[in-house]
């Protein structure tokens, strides 16, 4: 009996070791496997240059400490998920842009001319299901697939708005940090915490498929809420 238990445990350990080796090999051979050394969830790395003034843009009311750049007329944020997301964004040294300002940028002629760039940080399935018209995709988990196309557009823009699904989604924050860490001026980067959820709730236009596919529909006409 003792021998059986011992052998079973040894067999179990052996299978685990072989399974792990198999897993490492399979992950390495998998074209989109996990990079073991990469920090997929960067945090708090953006340092905003002190010589440059804060950009003239309003922040939502999550950061209400004295001396913050929150405007006094900002409505309070009731959604705890959104409030937490905004706090995380500000803690990482990033800037938050509110929904009305995103809409204003979208409607500005400069947006069509590349003066403002929107970056969608969701995966390909969600991006193709519907994104803000003209937004570039930047799935930060596979950043090398996108960065060569997105970075030049961002470097030529006055403002770069990064968004994901909205609420508890953190991909916009991570994508914004990646852009900042790769040399994009952080004073130009804004994270839109409302994301696709807020955009679609406002029934704003949504583009399906590839960027500039011209397949544009109303936000509320799409199924789902832009989340997984």
């Amino acid at each position, binding site marked *: 009996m003792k021998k059986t238990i011992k052998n079973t445990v040894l067999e179990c350990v052996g299978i685990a070791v072989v*399974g792990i080796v198999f897993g490492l090999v399979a*992950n390495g051979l998998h074209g989109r496997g*996990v990079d073991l050394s*990469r920090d997929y969830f960067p945090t708090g790395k953006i340092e905003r240059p002190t010589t440059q003034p804060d950009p003239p843009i309003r922040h939502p009311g999550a950061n209400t400490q004295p001396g913050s750049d929150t405007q006094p007329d900002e409505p309070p944020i009731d959604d705890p998920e959104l409030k937490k997301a905004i706090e995380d964004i500000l803690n990482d040294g990033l800037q938050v842009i509110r929904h009305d300002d995103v809409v204003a940028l979208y409607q500005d002629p400069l947006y069509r001319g590349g003066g403002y760039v929107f970056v969608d940080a969701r*995966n390909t399935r969600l991006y193709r299901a519907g994104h803000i018209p003209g937004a570039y995709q930047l799935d930060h988990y596979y950043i090398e697939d996108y960065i060569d196309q997105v970075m030049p557009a961002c470097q030529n823009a006055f403002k770069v708005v990064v968004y994901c699904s909205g609420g508890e989604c953190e991909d916009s924050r991570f994508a914004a940090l990646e852009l900042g860490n790769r040399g994009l001026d952080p004073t130009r980067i804004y994270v839109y915490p409302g994301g696709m959820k807020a955009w679609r709730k406002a029934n704003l236009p949504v583009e399906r498929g590839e960027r500039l596919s011209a397949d544009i529909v109303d936000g509320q006409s799409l199924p789902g809420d832009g989340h997984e």
Partner: protein
Amino acid sequence: MLLARLALGGLFIYMGYNKATQPTDFLQAVRLYQMVPEHPPYLLNFIAATLPWVEIFCGVLLVVGVALRGNALLLLTMLIGFTIGVTLRAMEIHRAEGTPFCAIYFDCGCGTGVEWICGKIVKNIGLCILASIVLLSRSRWLCLQVNLRRR
């Protein structure tokens, strides 16, 4: 015993495949459990990279009938760990959001999509019973190899 083996093995192959084909989704799910440190990222990435393939490997061994006892013990250990992890995560959501425990409906990163937590716990207990049957059974019908030790 054969049915338990095939059901458990098939399910692990299915769940492992779903995770292995969406590795970054699984990485995000593992991160949400906050059981391993995020920084430095090596351990978190290692778990996300290997666990789905270990599940597939074990599932295949179980289906073809190789090293059944050791395999069943490994699956039972993993299932107990997963069940504890999922329960703790659901309790955290319950505390944070005030949602009744059994009304929690979320993607636990198990490879089976979004599920009700109480249903998930019951399913996992069922799988633990299947793994225990394989572990304790002496039947080796339709096994490719009776036992690795006899090689």
